[in-house]
């Protein structure tokens, strides 16, 4: 293989791959917004529908991102807040918080009425708890309803830890995961309340 051939090969490959990568970056840029929307729509919307009741807008379009902390590497952690509006007024604010259960992380969507400072409802978005036991945090309607209509200042821990929530019998770890998630969520809400401008 002569030197000229080698240079030609490297050159062709470099040009082709950079054109490809450049083209893809452009496509990504164009589709990014829509992909975010779709991912939220199909993964978060079922939970949103469960907890938001009184609104006439599309909460997924009316969402805002706020920096709520830093991760281990010092990069910003953002939380997405979904705004439910009725006649232009914000009626609820929904966002996701996490705790850990028996089978892995548990994601919980929390709806808060920003004017009254009241937790309206909570719903589990993602979980991998044992079917039939820990999965009751999703299937048993009585458990999540304990969080509803309580002021954000309430103690959302389990009764065993001095809070107001009764654990599902046989699924204490999973219940505790949900209550931790809600407690964290409420704390986060109180920290960023002023930034939301509501």
């Amino acid at each position, binding site marked *: 293989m002569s030197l000229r051939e080698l240079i030609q090969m490297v050159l062709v490959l470099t040009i082709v*791959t950079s054109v*490809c*990568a450049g083209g*893809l970056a452009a496509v*990504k840029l164009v589709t990014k917004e829509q992909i975010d929307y779709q991912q939220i729509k199909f993964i978060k919307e079922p939970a949103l529908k469960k907890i938001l009741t009184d609104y006439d807008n599309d909460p997924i379009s009316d969402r805002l991102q706020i920096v709520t902390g830093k991760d281990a590497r010092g990069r910003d952690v953002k939380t997405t807040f979904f705004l439910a509006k009725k006649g232009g007024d914000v009626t609820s604010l929904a966002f996701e918080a996490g705790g850990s259960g028996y089978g892995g992380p548990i994601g919980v969507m929390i709806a808060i009425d920003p004017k009254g400072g009241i937790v309206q409802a909570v719903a589990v978005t993602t979980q991998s708890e044992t079917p039939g036991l820990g999965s009751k945090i999703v299937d048993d309607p009585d458990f999540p309803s304990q969080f509803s209509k309580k002021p954000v200042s309430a103690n959302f821990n389990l009764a065993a830890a001095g809070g107001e929530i009764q654990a599902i019998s046989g699924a204490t770890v999973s219940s505790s995961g949900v209550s931790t998630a809600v407690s964290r969520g409420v704390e986060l809400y109180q920290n960023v309340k002023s930034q939301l401008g509501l």
Partner: protein
Amino acid sequence: MQDYLLMIVAAMFINNIVLIRFMGNCPVVGVTSSYESAVGMGAAVIFVATMAGTTCWIIQKTILEVLGIEYLQTLVFILVIAALVQFVEILMQKVAPPLYRALGIFLPLITTNCMVFGVSVLNIKEEHSFMQTLIFSLASAVGFALVLLFMAGLRERMDATGRVPSLLRGVPITLITAGMMGLSFAGLLGMA
């Protein structure tokens, strides 16, 4: 330790990459007409898939995720695999000529073996750690090689008896046999 053992059994048999996940079927149909070529292909794939799985994992974690360009995964992984195959070919030719003579002709075929690419993507999708990636890639490739060997052995016997209806000879009977093999592998389901 037990977790790793379970992972090995699952990747080799219960979720066999060929029979249950449907990856790498072309070589199972293509190179199982003789036992020797099945051994060669199997060995070459074990080698390349393990290297590709771990290399792709490292690149994903140290480059793609750090720069936030995970969407280029497909493009980057396939180029890594193609380059790796080239590299292995050249290295083998220089260092171990007898091995190269035995496996050399199978190496170019591996680039488009969906099993190698599939394992690399699965490692990322299922959020494996580095150790898990290594074990999963190796065990999946061994599972692939086993199917290749079983199939080659079965086909040699089927050809010898000559009792396969002429219309099913070749590819059709290979696929039906693969289905039967998948059923027997599924019998191990209770173990994990």
